[in-house]
């Protein structure tokens, strides 16, 4: 028993080390910091923006429709005379929520399946991996459209669809990591002393396999935001009058020629958020990848 606790202690120490190293290298990348700043900005916007948004987002005033950007309406007004700036601020909450929630859902389910497949191997592995292969054989947006068509169009169902299509990415990632981690001596030791599988999986394998999931998760949020916007653009996600960015783009399409600001600002909002997450994700990957360490 004594030797066991010593073993655990060293494992914990080892686990702290890499995170510090990662932070050092992350700080060095300017792009990653810019990305993080953008992401933080949008998170703050999502949290507190609705409090500062100047106008009621659902207040239609058809007499001021399609006005260009001005002092009163910073980003102009849309088809219904609603303030685009306020709607984009509110939209940040929707897009980020969809991004985070769908990724958390797919990461949890994906990790669970991935760990089981990697740790137990054999039939379970074959079945789970083949299911992942099948899902990955479809273009992801097509699969999402199919899922939403079955569930019916709504933001919630779009979120579920996006979560489902991202499961195999997480699953495969963590499975491959588990395959290598489970051969480590400390796992063999833990098994040798008769530790329960559930404890080995949760206390030892999961923490040691998790770093790629964080990277993948950050990048997946970016994809998820785009996918949610795409589904809403196609009329399969957010429903009127939700101020979802993709839906705003789609509604503005007819005015591409006459009122371009109705498209430009939601478009920019999507672009910036996605850019932020991608830069941050790239930075994280470089920081957490042991191969990149000097």
């Amino acid at each position: 028993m004594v030797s066991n606790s010593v073993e655990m202690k060293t494992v914990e120490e080892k686990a702290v080390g890499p995170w510090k190293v990662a932070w050092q290298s992350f700080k060095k990348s300017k792009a990653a910091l810019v990305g993080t700043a953008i992401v933080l900005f949008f998170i703050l916007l999502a949290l507190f923006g609705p409090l500062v948004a100047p106008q009621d987002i659902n207040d239609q005033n058809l007499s001021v429709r399609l006005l260009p950007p001005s002092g009163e309406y910073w980003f102009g007004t849309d088809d219904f005379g609603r303030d685009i700036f306020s709607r984009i601020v509110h939209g940040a909450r929707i897009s980020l929520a969809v991004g985070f929630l769908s990724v958390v859902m797919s990461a949890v389910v994906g990790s669970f399946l991935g760990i089981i497949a990697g740790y137990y191997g054999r039939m379970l592995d074959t079945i789970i991996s083949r299911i992942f292969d099948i899902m990955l054989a479809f273009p992801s947006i097509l699969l999402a459209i199919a899922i939403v068509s079955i569930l019916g169009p709504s933001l919630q169902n779009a979120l579920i669809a996006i979560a489902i299509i991202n499961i195999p990415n997480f699953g495969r990632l963590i499975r491959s990591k588990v395959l290598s981690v489970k051969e480590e001596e400390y796992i063999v030791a833990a098994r040798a002393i008769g530790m329960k599988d559930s404890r080995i999986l949760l206390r030892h394998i999961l923490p040691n396999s998790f770093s790629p999931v964080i990277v993948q998760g950050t990048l997946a949020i970016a994809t998820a935001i785009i996918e949610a916007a795409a589904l809403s653009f196609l009329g399969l996600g957010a429903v009127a009058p939700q101020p979802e960015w993709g839906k705003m783009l789609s509604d503005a399409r007819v005015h591409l020629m006459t009122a371009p600001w109705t498209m430009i600002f939601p478009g920019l909002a999507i672009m910036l958020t996605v850019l932020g997450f991608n830069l941050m994700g790239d930075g994280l990957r470089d920081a957490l990848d042991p191969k990149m360490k000097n």
Partner: protein
Amino acid sequence: MRKNKLWSLGLFLLLALTAILAACSSNEGTTEPAKTTETSGEATTEETKEAVPQVLVFGRGGDSVSLDPAIVTDGESFKVTENIFETLLNFGEQDTTIHPGLAKEWEVSEDGLTYTFHLQEGVKFHDGTDFNAEAVVKNVERWKAGTAEQFYYFNTMFKAEGKDIIKTVTAVDEKTVVFELSRPQAPFLKNIAMSPFGIASPTAFEAAGDKFGDNPVGTGPFVFVEWKRNDSITVKKNDNYWQAGLPKLDTIIFRAIPDNSARLNALVTGEIDLADGINPSDAGTIEGNADLQLIERPSMNVGYLGLTSTRKPFDNKLVRQAVNYAIDKQAIVDAFFEGRAEVAVNPMPSSIFGYNDEITGYEYNPEKAKELLAEAGYDGKEIELWAMPVPRPYMPDGQKVAEAIQKNLADVGIPSKIVTFEWATYLEKAKNGEADAFLLGWTGDNGDADNFLYALLDKDNIGSNNYSYYSNDAVHDLLITAQSDLDEEKREQLYKEAQVLIHEDAPWVPLVHSIPLLAAKKGVTDYVPHQTGSESLINVSIQ
């Protein structure tokens, strides 16, 4: 992931750039508004007149269903068949008065039961078959023999309660044909002039059977050439056409381009010559473009919000009236039709004979709506608000109109969810009475009140065009009497009374009578759109 990032960045930059460029160019354009006369006065191309190929590419929103006019109901099919087939009588160029067609003269008996048509001489079908009284008889007998599913229009226009209104049709001699009716039908001549009753070659339809729609043969100015499904239909000039000097075009290609913006774009780039279904918001852009002309189709339609009277909460008349008070129609017309429409009061436009102008309609009055809802004991349950997925001539952007209505309803305390389906499903489900409130519309076929009130709101047509399941026996009696009475004054009175009852029962919120817009290149001459939504392009030429 990297790819994704680049992709999204690139796309949005491109989008922003395009938008800015487009905005700039349109601003320059609108400073010099061009005239939009239908006939091109400026003959700048006199020299090259001979050289201009007489080929017209007509861009429209959808493909035809079939080219057998007798079996279809959709406007996109009639747009083509109007050019291949001709009817015994024609409508006026831009009205619904009766003019000679394949029949040059006609007589009606005193009792309104016998119609005698004298046919044009020297007319042949495209396959060489002679057009004569026998051919007309064979056509009518074909329609009569079919079921309601086969010949929808014939059944709604010429059958009532399972009985044929056209009792017999006989060829008296080579060029004279006589229709005997079982009861007088006031709009008979207008009905017979409708596009579905184009006369087809008996040899061809007898040989082709169900396949006739794939290879249509009529007497019209244009001969069918080929049909690429969901893409294009080509027709060419009928060299043996019976009216000398016509048609002026050599070839017409009907191209289906579903997206309104894409279609307009195709017109701007010169891919097509004439574009149907222009968004009202693009009208300004077209007027500002010196190479294009904006064409207005005379309005003979109605766009409405149907309130299914068999479903809660709309089974209560007070709730239906409340919804009528709740919706700000004028604001909708101003915003989403850019003013190119008239606010609707009755289920038919004011140009139709029998329109009741004493009815002023429900004004926009949210307070009154709330009172009525309270009186009705409405429970505040969310309703489904159906919006059509495709642009229609009577409503170019149903989704936006629905969103405005959603807000109007929310203001008086009716929460609603906007729902949409693929177009065919939408119609099917609405027809089955599955919608609470739904947007829909109608373009008149023959300019008669019967074609609006009876077709859309009589209990006979529940399960067909009466989507709101409105059923009122008093209205039914008025409409049936009006249909069989030949006295115009009496008919007018009956229709006016029916409108009063309908207004009171409020099965719909009549929203709008829109002016459908088209656009063409400057060189397209003598294109005169008809209010029924389809017209022959016999006089059109390209300069």
